[in-house]
């Protein structure tokens, strides 16, 4: 044994391992153990090799095979609680802004009285007793003040009063204030739409996927509001309505109702200011309806363009007398009936048309039903229950039937655009979408109507609507309103509906003034020609350059002389006007 384990003390260096030689069973056991260790070590080495290869592969090489996961759930963009409402050009009309409101949890409040005192240093207009009650009272949630400014929020936070908490929410803001008040409507404190577009499209807005694009042009809206406001103020009227429609699509470019309110502060919503006179109010429109009477007569063929009726004597039917406001006391041709706004002529024209035909045409113009416009405040027309001869006659000059201003503007659009009636809409019409229109009068009739309307402005009661350089056509309306079943002389609805440019009409502009009073400048007259026509003229003058409508005449700088029209001159002028319209229509194709 000692020979086997010879230790050569001088041959071995200190760091060298001692060699031990074993035999037999012990060597076998050691070998087995050694082999097991080697195998385990090999396995571990293999595992480390795999790990290190993977590590090198992941960190050093590009196409490591890591899945390219797009993390949708965390990279969504921020959206407000309610979608924006925009005008046709993308201008924001209504939006939700983040806001902070203050509430109290009375259980956490330590000393309500001192807390109230300190709180009132930041918000001095809080009622002392009220605040103390809210800070000490029962419950766990009492609103103290909603919609704080950021400064107020900072100061209240700095007070460090326990029990006061902020809640973040969104508040509906209308950057343009009163300008489109009735159209946009309001939301209540919980963010629910309660009027106007806010209510009609509540579901879409709460979806908040994309903003709502209206057909309104805020620039036109501002112009119409300003001019209508000027007319209402000058004539001390109770209110008014203004509309601008696109005749080729039925889009509403401006819708104004006065008096109005500021949707940003609910305090301004007092009395009947919330009433939308443009869509919900129904009125007997008066002489503007003579346009439809003439259109029906020409389209149905009951009278020719150079035909006419005897307007020399008033008509007596039962207890009523139909007479003219400014009687000419002679035979009047169809153009003259419109130029002089003769009730007698219109009534006789309607008698020739007949009740059934009149009712059918009015139905096609949309006058007999509420309009399918996308607003909750839509008025239902008042039509006679039994359509007798007397009704036919009064309806011919706009009495005995009550419609909203939107009805009137939309139907006049159908008169001038070639006879197609498009449903009025407040949503922007995307180019490329099909238009659903109904042919209500023939193209030839539409051409004649354009000529007639232009004559009214050139020579008739609509002279105050003239704008130098532009061809405008229209009709005035002056109607007495009823109180308790009787007509009151001084309670007028004065209106003017105009279309331009008459060689190829694009827009209808309507101004309605409710209860104007005559002033010295207008010789105490308050009819449509004095009150509404000038407003429409000013609106057209300002909107034409914006809408890219160039003046037709460059040389015309002065208003034409006021000549008294004779029959010959009139027909020549009318034929010339119709020829021009035909030419321009043909040239523009």
């Amino acid at each position, binding site marked *: 044994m000692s020979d086997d384990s010879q230790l050569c003390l001088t041959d071995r260096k200190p760091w060298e391992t001692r060699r031990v030689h074993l035999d037999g069973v012990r060597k076998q056991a050691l070998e087995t153990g050694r082999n097991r260790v080697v195998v385990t070590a090999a396995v*571990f080495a293999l595992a480390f090799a795999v790990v290190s290869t993977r590590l090198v592969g*992941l*960190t050093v090489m590009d196409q490591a095979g890591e899945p390219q996961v797009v993390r949708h759930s*965390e*990279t969504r963009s921020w959206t407000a609680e309610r979608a924006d409402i925009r005008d046709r050009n993308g201008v924001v009309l209504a939006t939700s802004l983040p806001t902070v409101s203050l509430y109290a949890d009375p259980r956490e409040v330590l000393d309500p009285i001192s807390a109230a005192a300190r709180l009132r240093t930041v918000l001095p207009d809080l009622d002392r007793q009220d605040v103390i009650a809210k800070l000490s009272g029962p419950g766990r949630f009492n609103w103290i003040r909603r919609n704080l400014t950021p400064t107020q929020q900072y100061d209240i936070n700095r007070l460090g009063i326990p029990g006061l908490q902020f809640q973040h929410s969104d508040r509906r803001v209308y950057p*343009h204030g009163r300008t489109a008040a009735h159209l946009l409507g309001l939301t209540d404190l919980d963010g629910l739409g309660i009027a106007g577009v806010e209510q009609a499209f509540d579901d879409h807005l709460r979806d908040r996927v994309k903003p709502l694009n209206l057909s309104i042009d805020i620039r036109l809206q501002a112009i119409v509001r300003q001019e209508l406001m000027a007319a209402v103020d000058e004539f001390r009227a109770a209110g008014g309505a203004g509309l601008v429609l696109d005749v080729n699509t039925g889009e509403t470019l401006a819708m104004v109702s006065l008096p109005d309110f500021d949707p940003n502060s609910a305090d301004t919503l007092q009395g009947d200011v919330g009433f939308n006179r443009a869509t919900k109010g129904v009125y007997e429109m008066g002489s503007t309806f003579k346009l439809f009477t003439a259109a029906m007569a020409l389209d149905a063929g009951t009278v020719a363009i150079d035909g006419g009726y005897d307007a020399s004597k008033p008509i007596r039917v039962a207890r009523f007398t139909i007479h003219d406001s400014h009687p000419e006391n002679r035979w009047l041709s169809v153009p003259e009936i419109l130029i002089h706004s003769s009730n007698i002529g219109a009534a006789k024209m309607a008698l020739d048309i007949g009740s059934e035909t009149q009712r059918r045409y009015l139905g096609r113009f949309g006058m007999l039903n509420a309009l399918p416009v996308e607003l909750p405040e839509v008025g239902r027309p008042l039509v006679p229950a039994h359509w007798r001869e007397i009704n036919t006659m009064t309806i011919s000059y706009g009495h005995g039937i009550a419609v909203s201003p939107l009805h009137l503007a939309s139907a006049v659009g159908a008169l001038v655009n070639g006879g197609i009636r498009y449903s009025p809409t407040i949503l922007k019409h995307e180019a490329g979408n099909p238009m659903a229109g109904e042919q209500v009068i023939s193209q030839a009739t539409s051409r004649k109507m354009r000529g007639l309307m232009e004559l009214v402005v050139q020579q008739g009661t609509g002279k105050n609507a003239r704008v*130098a350089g*532009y061809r405008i056509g229209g009709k005035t309306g002056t109607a007495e309103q009823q109180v308790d079943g009787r007509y009151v002389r001084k309670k007028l609805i004065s209106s003017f509906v105009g279309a331009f440019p008459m060689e190829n009409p694009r827009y209808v502009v309507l101004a309605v003034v409710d209860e104007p009073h005559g002033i010295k400048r207008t010789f105490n007259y308050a009819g449509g020609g004095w009150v509404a026509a000038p407003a429409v003229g000013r609106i057209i003058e300002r909107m034409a350059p914006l809408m890219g409508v160039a003046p037709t005449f*460059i040389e015309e700088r002065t208003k034409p002389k006021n000549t008294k029209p004779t029959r010959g001159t009139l027909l020549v002028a009318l034929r010339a006007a119709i020829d021009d319209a035909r030419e321009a229509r043909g040239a523009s194709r």
Partner: protein
Amino acid sequence: MIRQTTLLAVILAAALSVILFGVKYQVQDLEGELTSIERGILNEERAIHVLHAEWAHLNDPKRLRVLAERYLGLAPIAPIQLGRFDALPDRPAFDENQEGGPRAMSLAAAGGATPVVSHGSTR
């Protein structure tokens, strides 16, 4: 021999651990950066939304009209200020021999100013 292998293995293990944890912390840092950037984006989007409202308010036609009248002295365009190209007078025909050149011809056509005669540019 075994000792060297052991040593090598230990060194490798240490190195791999360092690399592994280095990569892991790098990823954590990047993830943290990503979250804060995303939060920053949300804040910016909200700020942009508020600025849109501010822009709409500043572009209120009522406000712009008041400012235009007060500071710029501007008023709405009147039709008399608009013209069309086909309403312009025709350009006079170009004649090389005309004294003074084409400018003189235009002045003469416009009626009034007598052209200043220049004796050519090169002498």
